[in-house]
């Protein structure tokens, strides 16, 4: 028994080492080689199989018969079985289709690029490139294909399925004569793997609900149940939720911001579009002291004076590509890179396209036009921009107004005749009122949206919450290790601050709700803010509930600590998604709500692992001090040991869930749930390393608190490497994350 245990856990250790080796091999010899000779090599599969058999044996023989634990481990067996099926029967490949030339072969994506054949013929009927409005930047590729007796469309966000084969739009032939599709065939693996994920989730839920688990015993041990119960509740909630460039003066720019624009399929204040534009390009809502409105008007009226402004915020890869020292490139630098056909990231391309849309006039739809139709009144109004193709038959003055009023503004801007510009803006405004008065958002609504958009509260709020959370947590752990609870004054002051924060968030969220007309949970940004709202709310109402239930146990006030932390991190994630507002329909892959959840869950897990590391570090330092002072506080040692262990469960579970949500998302987006991308591999390594820490009963040396703390501190290096190191050293498709 002991032997089996030793062998099984050693095997896992070897697998971890193999995975690390694999990612290094990949760096030097490419993904294909790493997959062939390391990740899916027969010896690796054998190791996994042996470790699995060992694990099953241990589980069967163990005296612990908790079926949540058994189910949890069984779900991993299912996931591994699914992977094996995918490995054995799944095929990944690519096919290049030429217009009206049927084929039944494709190239398998292995090291040798084997020819494979479909059990049907595939034919490209039509191929279109769809551009951003008014630009020549491709937004999407759309192939109409005929497979056997079924025809359909493949595009960036539309997968075509036939007889177990899935087709993804990948690119197009150099000469635009055909389309390149990704082929994915995985008849059994996906279903089995997904079953595994579902089982895993189920077993985690049961695990937290079951009594008598190691987790529960730990909780009892340090009597922090009240707080941790809140924490668990919150965690469950998380998993369920979804030279100065030339421009016009601020005053006139602001007046433009007060106009209405038809943008993102609805009428909004221009200032919102202007803020989105500036934030999307520069990452901030001000550029060199100029407001977003001024930046937008500057680009609109005198773009040439902006071409050399370093304001296009780049991702690391683009920065490397352009050999820049700064994170910011100029339009001209990006333009030149594009001329040289450098492989700029989609992010940089999107920024270029956004400027293209602005310059083409497509973005500034500020001219309502009442069509003569028989349709209902709401359909009478069409919103045009200066660059729109205007319908024939428009009255002369109306046509000229749309065609020329912004040119006149341009002239006045050049002449610096702002008094007259005010008059033109007033006319633009009046024109909107006259034609579309009944459609325009009400004054209150309009102001609400403007004020709302202008307050960029996400960042300071997130920073504040995270800082408070971390400080409270450290204090809490220190007190806990001395078996003390939080002083009342600290609790009350942090409670009051949370109350204020919650009030502010409530106002912001209700404004958002009022403006958009739907629950603020439609995208990652909103969802995370709502999550923070709930986290704070729970901590705020908790004392009332506790009083109601007549709970007289000594309170540790842990709920306030964890709520600050969770709320803070939720706000942090919401802040990250806010700096990339959705203006253009680019990268459908990155727009899925699954992505927001994936990021948020992993972030939370990393946050918890960070606290565990801190907790362990503090414990180690304390032990060192005791060691030298000759004193020892046995209870404190045990408490900090327990705290780390308690936090490990949600941390590891969240990491597992996060990875698997990522896998599901990748499967939808790229046709494969696991691609041995370095970040994926390293997330798996991290998961396995921390899973080791949970198995304190099986891994004897971890039962020594000092060894355990040391393990937790060192294990965090894996998190750090996964989060930061991979991007810088190994690259891969997560390089944007």
């Amino acid at each position, binding site marked *: 028994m002991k032997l089996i245990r030793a062998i099984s856990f050693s095997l896992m250790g070897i697998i971890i080492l193999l995975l690390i080796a694999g990612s290094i091999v990949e760096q030097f010899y490419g993904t294909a080689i790493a997959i062939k000779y390391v990740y899916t090599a027969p010896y690796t599969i054998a190791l996994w199989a042996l470790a699995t058999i060992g694990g099953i044996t241990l589980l069967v023989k163990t005296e612990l018969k908790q079926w949540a634990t058994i189910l949890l481990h069984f779900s991993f067996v299912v996931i591994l079985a699914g992977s094996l099926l995918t490995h054995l029967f799944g095929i990944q490949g690519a096919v290049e289709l030429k217009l009206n030339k049927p084929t039944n072969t494709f190239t398998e994506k292995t090291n040798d690029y084997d020819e494979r054949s479909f059990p049907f013929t595939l034919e490209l009927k039509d191929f279109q490139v769809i551009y951003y409005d008014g630009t020549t930047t491709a937004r999407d590729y759309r192939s109409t294909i005929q497979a056997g007796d079924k025809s359909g469309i493949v595009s960036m966000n539309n997968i075509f399925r036939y007889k177990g084969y899935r087709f993804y739009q990948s690119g197009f032939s150099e000469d635009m004569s055909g389309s390149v599709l990704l082929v994915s065939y995985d008849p059994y693996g996906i279903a089995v793997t997904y079953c595994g994920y579902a089982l895993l989730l189920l077993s985690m839920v049961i695990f937290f609900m079951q009594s008598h688990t190691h987790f529960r015993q730990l909780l009892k041990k340090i009597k922090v149940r009240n707080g941790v119960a809140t924490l668990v509740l919150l965690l469950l909630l998380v998993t369920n939720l979804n030279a100065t460039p030339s421009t016009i003066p601020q005053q006139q720019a602001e007046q433009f911001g007060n106009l209405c624009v038809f943008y993102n399929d609805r009428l909004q204040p221009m200032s919102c579009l202007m803020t989105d534009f500036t934030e999307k390009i520069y990452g901030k809502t001000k550029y060199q002291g100029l407001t977003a409105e001024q930046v937008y008007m500057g680009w609109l*009226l005198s773009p040439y004076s902006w071409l050399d402004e370093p304001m296009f915020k780049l991702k690391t890869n683009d920065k490397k590509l352009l050999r820049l020292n700064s994170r910011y490139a100029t339009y001209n630098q990006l333009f030149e890179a594009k001329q040289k056909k450098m492989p700029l990231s989609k992010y940089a391309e999107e920024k270029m396209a956004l400027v293209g849309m602005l310059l083409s006039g497509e973005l500034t739809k500020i001219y309502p036009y009442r069509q003569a139709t028989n349709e209902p009144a709401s359909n009478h109004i069409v919103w045009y921009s*200066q660059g729109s193709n205007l319908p*024939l038959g428009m009255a002369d003055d109306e046509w*000229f107004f749309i065609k020329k*009023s912004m*040119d006149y503004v341009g002239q006045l801007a050049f002449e610096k005749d702002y008094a007259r510009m005010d008059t*033109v803006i007033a006319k633009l405004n009046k024109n909107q009122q006259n034609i579309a008065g009944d459609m325009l958002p009400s004054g209150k609504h309009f102001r609400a949206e403007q004020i709302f958009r202008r307050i960029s509260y996400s960042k300071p709020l997130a920073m504040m919450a995270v800082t408070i959370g971390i400080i409270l947590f450290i204090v809490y752990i220190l007190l806990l290790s001395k078996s003390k609870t939080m002083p009342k004054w600290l609790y009350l002051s942090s409670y009051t601050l949370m109350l204020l924060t919650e009030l502010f968030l409530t106002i912001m969220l209700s404004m958002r709700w009022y403006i958009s007309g739907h629950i603020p949970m439609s995208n990652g940004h909103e969802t995370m803010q709502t999550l923070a709202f709930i986290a704070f709310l729970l901590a705020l109402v908790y004392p009332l509930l506790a009083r109601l239930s007549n709970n007289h146990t000594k309170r540790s006030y842990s709920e306030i600590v964890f709520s600050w932390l969770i709320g803070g991190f939720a706000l942090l994630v919401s802040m990250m998604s806010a700096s990339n507002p959705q203006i253009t329909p680019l990268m459908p892959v990155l727009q899925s709500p699954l992505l927001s959840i994936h990021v948020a869950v992993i972030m939370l897990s990393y946050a918890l692992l960070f606290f565990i590391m801190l907790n362990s570090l503090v414990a180690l330092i304390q032990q060192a001090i005791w060691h030298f002072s000759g004193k020892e506080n046995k209870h404190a040692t045990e408490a900090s040991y327990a705290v780390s262990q308690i936090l490990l469960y949600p941390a590891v579970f969240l990491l597992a869930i996060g990875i698997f949500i990522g896998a599901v998302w990748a499967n939808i987006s790229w046709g494969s749930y696991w691609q041995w991308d370095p970040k994926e591999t390293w997330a798996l390594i991290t998961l396995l390393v921390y899973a080791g820490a949970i198995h304190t009963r099986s891994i004897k040396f971890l039962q020594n608190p000092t060894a355990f703390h040391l393990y937790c501190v060192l294990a965090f290096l894996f998190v750090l490497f996964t989060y930061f190191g991979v991007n810088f050293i190994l690259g891969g498709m997560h390089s944007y994350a």
Partner: protein
Amino acid sequence: MNKRNLIILCLSLALFSCKNEKNINNLTPDPEKEYSEEYYSGGELGTVFNSTSFAYEQPTSAVENSGKSFDFQMGEYFFEKNWNTNTEGAFHGLGPLAVREGCLYCHPAYGHGKRQTSYDAHKQGNGYLLVLYETVDGQETYLSSLTGMPQTLAYGPFKAPIDESKINIAWLNYTDEWGNRFDDGETYELIYPEVTIPQDAYYVPLIANVNGEPTELTVNQVGIRLESTIGIYGTGLLDAIPDDSITAQWAREEQAYNAGYLKHWRSAWFTGGNWQTYYTGLDKQPYVRRFTYAMSRGPLQDAAGANAIWNITNVTRPDRRYHYMTAAYAEVASKDPDVQKEFPEWIKTQLNKDDNPECFTDNVEQNIYNYLMNKNLPVEMTEQQFVQLMVWHRGLAVPAARNLDDEKVKRGKELFTQLGCAQCHRPSWTTGSDDIHDPNNSLCDNTNMPRYPYQKIWPYTDMVQHKMMMKNDIRTGWCRTTPLWGRGLSKLVTGAEDRLHDCRARNVIEAIMWHGSPESDARESIEQFRALGKEDRDAIVKFIDAI
């Protein structure tokens, strides 16, 4: 500057339409404020303050002032939409042969064509026309068996005179005598096109007048060049320059040639201060040459666009009820058994037997020939539509200059003049009374066209032909100085800034350095340009981008 006129005009407009919210021009510019008049590249009537990607597509104030905005819109419509082979409905009448199916293919965003690596008539941005001529007697006469703008598209039973898929455009590197390098180490690259078309790509024999005699040529005796479109905006303003101003400019430059400042002079056209040859249309009036690289045309109403709408698409109109076609092609096609087989059925869909009995006789070969060379075809574009197209053509505004107050731009302008660039790229002209001339069909006149009387405009051309003596130069080597106005916006508008007649220059520096061959008229200027430091060279580029 005619500020006073403008004030009066605007005031009257303001009185006229003070009730109308939509009239935006009822405001007068502040007479107190003074700006460099050069900002108004197209004068006060022809300038638009717009730097967006449709900066070349905007109407002038003259369109509004003349109440022609509906005609402008219709004209724009004709320009922007593709034509089709239907015999009725909108945009019908394409073919039987065509150079392109619509105007925008060659004029991306109304601007200069983009450099191509193959010849595809369906590719957006391919502004190339093929130029084929004999290389035997030094006259470089166009082939007579092909139309001047050779067609590569054919419809119905017909076959294209040239199979465009076999046209090969190779881009070769050119190293100038300085090794493509400035003394401070900065380098540049020069490339030029070498076009070849194999024998089997031609459907027609290769015939040209050699020493006055029609002669059949071999492939090796045919020279092939590419000529790209340039921007359309501002042509109305160039048309408004008085003939005698242009004549005076030629006279001045003839003196400069006599004094040794120019190496080449087109004396066959202009000697002793007098024109030896004019452009004449159907009205037999002598007009000063002003449009196309070859300066083959006079007034705009019978120049580039007025002709292109007919000969690019082969859409007939009241004054041209015939095809853009050669007898040589008609002969080959009429003898082609494939064409003969399909023609009798097809022609029934095209013509009415009663109107054109000559295409319905018992002799198919004769019918085909009669159809292709017919002078009595149904009208496909009406007079009114043609006038509307011309309103639009004349009505396109020039984008205002930018950044002229920038110190570097100012320095660039100073150098541009100092180096002598401004000798040929003459900065400004003043338009005359702008009376409309329509040499061919007297459809356009002062009443129905937007006009630009007495405007100071800044096109940066002398309206004279010069020689740059480039490798694989334009046919004959003579080329009208291209207007530089608005070109600096090209990058923003069309996404490319290719310059020169065949788009060989990919940026301003390349374009400048192509002016520098030993026998070029601009040689001295380029030598001085090379002597400048990088800072100053960049200033000139920045200035050219600003105008």
